[in-house]
């Protein structure tokens, strides 16, 4: 057997090393605080090392089941950065409310990350499926981490049942695909795929499986409950990292396996985008719990991310990766503020945020930036990512879709402004008392804030991404 294949799997190997080291440290280490610093330090090293893997270029392993290229390395690095920020925000929660399962938290989170790496790099449906499952099953455990809360268990049950169901649907799709095309390599399917009912059914079943993962409407029903019940750090991880990885994997599948028949999948993707954005937005309008609110907001954001998929061009891929990159900082900033407030005061509804500016001006400021950036208000980074992803779709002549999406941004702006209004304009009898966040949360929020303000102005990032993107 040729072991040189393993060498190109830099990211995966280094993450496995981190995982093993954490497992051992958890066995023998007693001090949880030192363990946390060790885990984060190790993951930081892994993240930094990730940036040295550019030079691999395009390569494949295991007879083409696993591929890597610069854009894959970049996506994995983005996932790393996001995970690191999630860890930073989870520090305080781990130390105070999750004392007994700190080791498990890090181990399980990183296991799902490993699964996502494989999903992103897969060039064969079996590897893709293994990656998806590796990413899903530990996730259900993470969702159930609040052992004392009924909601957490409910959320986990919902998650695992839908995940199992969607996996089954997807496996069915994959087996139909194998029956119809005789191979599961993306490259072979590209050649053999035809516009017959059997092929299309296979495609739709497979798409449904991934749709659950990205929580596209109508496969979104688990999202709100799971987001609400899960610990806030896990919710943040679910809403950004897990979603970003699945979206990129979907784009790769569509480009690599179904590029010859774009008409078949673009038609239903068009409708899915429209209802995802619209329903996500309309339901978000009615939410009072901040985590549920962000759940629906993230559903509609997933719809915007799909605009990059429907474009299918290098421009679309670059815009999508860039969108996920910006969305990561923005959404994590919002979750960072929510978890900081939840940790200190256990308050989670929008009414609790009334008058927050008078007691905690800095937190309100960060939250406001996050809301503006999510709503696509310049000069914050979210504006640029939205503009580019709309431009990518418009380039393909999808003007009507872009217009519908833009009208939806007005609805979304309405509820994002409600949060701003609660914090800045509304008065409250008993606002959340003034408190000092712990240092880790502060570091995380500062990173996100700086990113939201300056990233849009640093144009080389986007120019670099487009240089390494590929498309139909």
């Amino acid at each position, binding site marked *: 057997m040729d072991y040189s294949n393993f060498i190109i799997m830099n990211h995966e190997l280094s993450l496995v090393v981190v995982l093993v080291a954490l497992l051992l440290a958890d066995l023998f280490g007693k001090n949880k605080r030192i363990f946390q610093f060790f885990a984060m330090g190790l993951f930081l090293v892994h993240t930094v090392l990730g940036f040295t893997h550019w030079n691999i270029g395009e390569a494949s392993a295991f007879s083409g089941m696993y591929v890597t290229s610069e854009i894959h390395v970049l996506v994995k690095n983005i996932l790393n950065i996001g995970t690191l920020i999630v860890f930073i925000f989870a520090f305080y929660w781990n130390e105070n409310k999750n004392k007994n399962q700190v080791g498990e938290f890090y181990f399980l989170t990183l296991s799902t990350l490993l699964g996502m790496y494989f999903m992103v790099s897969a060039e064969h449906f079996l590897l893709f499926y293994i990656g998806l499952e590796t990413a899903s099953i530990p996730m259900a455990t993470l969702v159930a981490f609040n052992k004392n809360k009924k909601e957490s268990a409910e959320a986990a049950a919902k998650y695992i049942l839908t995940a199992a169901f969607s996996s089954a649907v997807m496996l069915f799709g994959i087996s139909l695909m194998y029956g119809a095309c005789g191979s599961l390599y993306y490259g072979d399917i590209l050649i053999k795929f035809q516009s017959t009912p059997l092929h299309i059914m296979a495609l739709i079943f497979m798409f449904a499986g991934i749709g659950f993962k990205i929580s596209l409407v109508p496969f979104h029903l688990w999202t709100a409950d799971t987001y609400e019940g899960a610990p806030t750090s896990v919710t943040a991880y679910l809403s950004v990292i897990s979603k970003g990885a699945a979206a990129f994997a979907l784009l790769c599948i569509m480009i690599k396996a179904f590029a010859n028949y774009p008409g078949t999948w673009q038609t239903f993707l068009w409708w899915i985008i429209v209802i995802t954005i619209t329903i996500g937005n309309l339901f978000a309008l009615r939410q009072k719990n901040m985590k549920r609110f962000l759940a629906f907001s993230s559903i509609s954001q997933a719809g915007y991310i799909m605009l990059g998929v429907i474009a299918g061009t290098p421009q679309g891929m670059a815009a999508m990766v860039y969108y996920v990159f910006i969305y990561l900082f923005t959404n994590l900033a919002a979750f960072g503020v929510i978890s900081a407030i939840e940790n200190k005061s256990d308050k989670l509804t929008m009414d609790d945020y009334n008058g927050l500016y008078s007691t905690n001006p800095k937190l309100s400021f960060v939250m406001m930036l996050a809301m*503006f950036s999510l709503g696509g*208000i310049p000069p914050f980074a979210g*504006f640029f990512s939205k503009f580019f992803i709309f*431009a990518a779709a*418009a380039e393909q002549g999808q003007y009507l879709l872009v*217009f519908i999406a833009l009208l939806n941004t*007005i609805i979304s*702006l*309405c509820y994002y402004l409600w949060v701003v209004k609660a914090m800045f304009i509304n008065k409250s009898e008993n606002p959340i008392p003034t408190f000092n966040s712990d240092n880790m949360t502060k570091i995380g929020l500062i990173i996100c804030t700086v990113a939201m303000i300056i990233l849009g102005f640093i144009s080389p990032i986007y120019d670099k991404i487009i240089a390494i993107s590929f498309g139909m």
Partner: protein
Amino acid sequence: MNILSLFVIIPLIMMAIIFCIDGEKKSMIRMVMSIGGFALLATSAYLTVEYLAAREAGDMAEFLFTDSILWYETFNIHYAVGVDGVSVAMLLLSSIVVITGVFVSYSIEEQTKEYFLWFLLLSIGVYGFFISLDLFTMFLFYEVALIPMYLLIGLWGSGKKEYSAMKLTLMLMGGSAFLMVGIFGIYYLSVPKGGSLTFNIQEIAANVTTLTEQGADNSWQYIFFPLTFVGFGVLGAMFPFHTWSPDGHASAPTAVSMLHAGVLMKLGGYGCFRVAMYLMPDAANDLAWIFIVLTGISVVYGAYSACVQTDLKYINAYSSVSHCGLVLFALLMMNKTAMTGAILQMVSHGLMTALFFALIGMIYGRTHTRDIREMGGLMKVMPVLCVCYVIAGLASLGLPGLSGFVAEMTIFVGAFEHEDMFHRVFVILGCTSIVITAVYILRVVGKILFGPIQDEHHAALTDAIWYEKIAIFTLIFAIAAIGMAPLWLSNMIAGGIENIVKLF
């Protein structure tokens, strides 16, 4: 460095300074604002002089003081700036309104620091919009100008401020949704064979001309011209998208109303002119009639609505709908005289309405009511404010010697050059608004300034104090200056208009 970038950099520096000042040191913040405001005014005055000198010296380039820095290479986005006569006039107007707005805002005591930070962000958006020559940068500044309005109205406003703030923000953002699609359409479809995609307005205009010469299909213009025009028209308070304007103006704090009606609504007119009509002349020619009807309704409907209002701010807000409608109306006449009049009207209305809102704010600050039924005989109590109010009113109804007359005269003379029935009917309809304007202005003046004092508490009120006087006298000076010596301004504007009129 390019002198135009100063208009963005000076407010940025002011924001940085104010951000570092302790919120309790209000007088220091106000001082920084005043110095910065004067710096902006001086910059725009200097720019005007330089611009006129350059034209005098025979520099016939379409835009002067141009500069272009590559930003996003992929999309060919530049930070491109440059001005013609129209933008110079707009910059001058903005600077006057900003500095007077600062003085009027001296009375803000609550959260002074935050107020001025948002105020500055708003002015960055406004200035940036007028100097931009790149569609992306322009759109970016446009949206930067919109969002501070939400917090400025929601936090420092009065009345049903939260409702108005939300309505205003969402409607204007709705406009920008139309606009964004329009921009994508222009960007992707204006490229002739072998050309490259560009956001630069000048290059797009050249591309569109090439396309026409090649005889290429121009049907895209007929889809994206209405989108773009409506997008900007929302901000220009075009019927039926004007409903945000009365509520928004009435709830906003004084200086924000001034800036909003005085400058921000001009973004709409300027955008229609610079983007919609300049870049899609074929569609502008053919579809103008639709918008002439809509803006014609704005003009008359706004004026009639103003007649029945009892709240001073609502009266002025509807009057703004009418006057801003006249701006778009005149632009759509598409000849040099009328379009010059449109820009003159933008300047004139900006100054006039800023003066109105400033005075209304000052009167409201004293009487604590804006209802004209509860006021009367104020002339005896505060003569300076009231005389200024009369002057503003006279300018608004077009008294010769003040700026309003110059603008409206030019517009209607230009509009009457069209000889067909359709244009004639609408021009005559538009003219009637002058009469209606006189009705509502004189009604207010007669009701609140003369007659017996309605409320005995009003007898003890004081007249304008120093910073208020600076603000209103500056505005009156500008109004009178344009009224007395309009020629330099209208010549400067006409220079910019010529480039676009030749396209039709």
